[in-house]
């Protein structure tokens, strides 16, 4: 096709590491037409980022070896160009938006300096010269394009002073500085809250339309793809397994892998949604929290004196019955994790009372009996499991400190491994020898070792790939039934919570703004914030899209963080 702005043909790339060569890309062909939005979707490790880096020319060689194939940009083979010629295309031809808005900035330089540098060096490459004023004019114009205001203040700020959404906006602005024709976006917004992500995606869409750009969008999220692509490539283990227009992929996916991906996305509305009910009808209030507040002192100044208080949790009331799967939803910084840590006795509350299984947390409960009551599973098993200790050693810690003998510990460890569907032989392995899902199973086993009644699940699946999420969720359901557990499920993934929790509380700025049965909250959200939150979730069908609550821009901005102005 003549009109292809980017045409990757039969690209084969392998990596040579530790004396072994492994093939990473197998005959990948992707083309993007002028003005088209193309998405590349796949799980982590499928080769999306390697493809992206091969296109922009930042693939480290060695260890990478480009075995065959060509990358045509406007009918020029990029792989055949010299380094100098290739650099001319960077920024002005192909530009990139990276995933992490904080890591992509230099923390010690102002935004102005960083943006100006981009213009300066690309001017050198192209061979034109512009003065400071001219450059600044260009930067201000670009900031207007990404809907940022208060330019003077923004340009003189350092990256740390901006919110995540603003950083991502500035990052998009940076990629637009030299009027590129093709924009490559590597999971933009993934590190942000769902509401902010929504704004970023809307911005990208409008930019592509207004500026006539072509977009290659790399992501793992099917819901995002539905909003961002005209055509989709599905990638698995370095191969393109399916490609089709968006409508066709979502209507009738053909490849087994695409179908699996589709099914692993939890539905938000419709018949596929599961309503979870508490089989235990007893209303016993195993956890009752009343008027809980927690504030952290902020210390500043030369003498490190307390200058103000950060109110992380403000007069929260919660009643959780045994057998509940109680969801605590909210964006980062809303106070979910603080509540969990107070319940675990890791932080003391500033005020309020907490009763767990009739024990009052304030009255110096004996720690050992308390540990047997409530335990936690952390978000990232890579961090919550000590790399230098074997699975057996990890699992034995809680047992050792509650008086188990060595014999009993050994038996209990194998019992626990069986409980989470892991072979007993894994007890001698170190965490890095296990996959992400297996590690999380070990973490669950550790939490269960003292037979607690309550388990706090702090985003237990968010560090896992979507296909593995399902198996862990299944395991949690089985364990709950088997052991009669009560779960407190902390997450920002509302579509997952819709299908996993029977009750849900939405947290907003340290307060619970809405709580009740999951079904009722999703079908009829009352609080404006809940509405905005639900409406921001990317879904995978038009039917679900239409069932989302409608929120206008003005309503959104009333409750959400402003990402356009400092």
């Amino acid at each position, binding site marked *: 096709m003549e009109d292809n702005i980017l045409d990757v043909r039969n690209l084969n790339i392998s990596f040579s590491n530790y004396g072994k060569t492994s093939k990473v890309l197998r005959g990948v062909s992707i083309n993007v037409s002028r003005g088209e939005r193309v998405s590349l979707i796949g799980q982590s490790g499928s080769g999306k980022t390697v493809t992206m880096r091969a296109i922009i020319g930042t693939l480290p060689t060695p260890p990478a070896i480009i075995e065959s194939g060509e990358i045509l940009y406007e009918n020029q083979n990029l792989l055949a160009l010299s380094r100098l010629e290739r650099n001319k295309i960077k920024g002005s031809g192909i530009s990139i938006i990276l995933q992490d808005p904080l890591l992509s900035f230099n923390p010690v330089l102002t935004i102005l300096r960083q943006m100006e540098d981009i213009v300066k060096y690309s001017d050198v490459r192209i061979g034109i010269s512009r003065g400071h004023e001219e450059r600044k004019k260009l930067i201000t114009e670009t900031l207007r394009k990404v809907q940022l205001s208060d330019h003077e203040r923004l340009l003189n700020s350092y990256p740390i002073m901006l919110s995540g959404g603003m950083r991502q906006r500035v990052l998009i602005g940076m990629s637009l500085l030299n009027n590129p024709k093709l924009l490559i976006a590597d999971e933009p917004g993934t590190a942000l809250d769902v509401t902010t992500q929504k704004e970023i995606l809307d911005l990208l869409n409008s930019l592509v339309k207004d500026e006539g750009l072509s977009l290659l969008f790399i992501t793992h999220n099917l819901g995002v793809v539905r909003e961002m692509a005209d055509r989709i490539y599905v990638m698995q283990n370095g191969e393109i397994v399916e490609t089709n227009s968006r409508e066709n992929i979502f209507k009738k996916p053909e490849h087994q892998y695409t179908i699996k991906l589709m099914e692993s996305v939890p539905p938000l509305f419709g018949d596929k949604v599961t309503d979870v009910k508490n089989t235990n009808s007893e209303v016993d209030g195993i956890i009752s929290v009343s008027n809980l507040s927690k504030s952290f002192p902020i210390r500043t100044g030369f003498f490190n004196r307390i200058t103000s208080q950060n109110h992380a949790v403000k007069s929260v009331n919660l009643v959780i019955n045994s057998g509940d799967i109680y969801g605590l939803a909210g964006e980062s910084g809303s106070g979910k994790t603080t509540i969990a840590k107070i319940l675990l006795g890791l932080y003391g509350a500033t005020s309020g009372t907490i009763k767990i299984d009739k024990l009052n947390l304030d009255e110096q409960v004996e720690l050992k009996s308390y540990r047997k009551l409530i335990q936690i599973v952390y978000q990232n098993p890579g961090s919550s499991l*000590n790399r230098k200790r074997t699975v057996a050693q990890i699992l034995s810690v809680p047992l050792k400190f509650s008086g188990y003998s060595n014999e009993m510990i050994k038996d209990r460890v194998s019992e626990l491994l069986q409980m989470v569907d892991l072979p007993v032989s894994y007890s001698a392995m170190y965490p890095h020898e296990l996959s992400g899902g297996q590690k999380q199973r070990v973490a669950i086993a550790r939490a269960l070792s003292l037979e607690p009644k309550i388990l706090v699940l702090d985003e237990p699946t968010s560090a896992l790939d979507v296909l593995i999420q399902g198996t862990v969720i299944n395991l949690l359901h089985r364990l709950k039934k088997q052991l009669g557990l009560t779960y407190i499920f902390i997450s920002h993934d509302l579509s997952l919570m819709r*299908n*996993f929790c029977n009750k849900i509380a939405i947290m907003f700025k340290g307060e619970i703004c809405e709580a009740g049965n999951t079904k009722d909250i999703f079908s009829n959200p009352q609080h404006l914030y809940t509405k905005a939150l639900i409406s921001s979730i990317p879904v995978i069908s038009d039917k679900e899209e239409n069932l989302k609550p409608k929120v206008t821009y003005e309503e959104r901005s009333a409750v959400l963080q402003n990402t356009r102005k400092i």
Partner: protein
Amino acid sequence: MNHPLGTNISGEDDMGQHRSLTSSQMAWFRFRSNPSSIIGAFIVFSVIFVAIFAPLIAPSPQSAGSFVDFMNRHSPPSRDFWFGTDNVGRDIFTRVVFGYRVSLGLVVGVLGFAVPFGVFLGLLAGYFGNWTEFVIMRFTDIMLAIPPLAMALAITAVLSPNLINAMIAITMLWWTWHTRLIYRIVKAQMNEDYVEAARVAGASHFHIMFRELLPNCISAISVKISLDAGFVILFGAALSFLGLGVQPPTPDLGTMVSTGSEYLPEYWWEALMPGLAILYAILGFNLLGDGLRDMMDVEV
């Protein structure tokens, strides 16, 4: 119950084994692919070997003591005297071989006390934070602010100059580096969830410090030790050179350089050969340390 979210998902992704290489194999590969680390390991082992079997290797073991052979004084390197002889006719090669014993003894003595002490304080400071951290780290800073040679001079001047006192002087300075290193690592590790997870599991402070945190410091400690070994040898030789360390007739590399330097430049081998011996050992330890650092991927 099979929950809808989990249907149609084969166990392959979750339970599949894709371990091609273990981490120790990878580490060994990194070590092996770096020729300088292999050379370093070879040098270090040769030094240790020579030190252990000194009486068997040395051509004239009597030269290690207060032996005098005026017939052969100041003879240049030859087939009989590989490194030549010194001002009283002792075989310099023999004395170098025995000198390694003294040097390695110094390394073991100094690091044997300084490392555990420094690591322990670093763990305490990093783990407890607050006042413990303040007291320990400020004390460390004060010790670091004292010029090492001045400190060693003061100690050996008050006590008598001999090997043990030199060891004490070096030890008193050396632990600070380990404290700082471990403190920094522990501080970073404290942000990891496993520390809190251990606390939630009811683990004691002792358990968290020595069973959870310490294993994460081991690779950094071993790299630091191998780099340190070279510097301790150098520092010990410097003290001996100044006459504050090992006293004659005990063969010490620093003392030998010092005595030999009086006869420069005519009898050049008397200072050069022990000097090269010091260089050889330090080079070995540094190359090994660098290799270990690349292999274990730690920053020291």
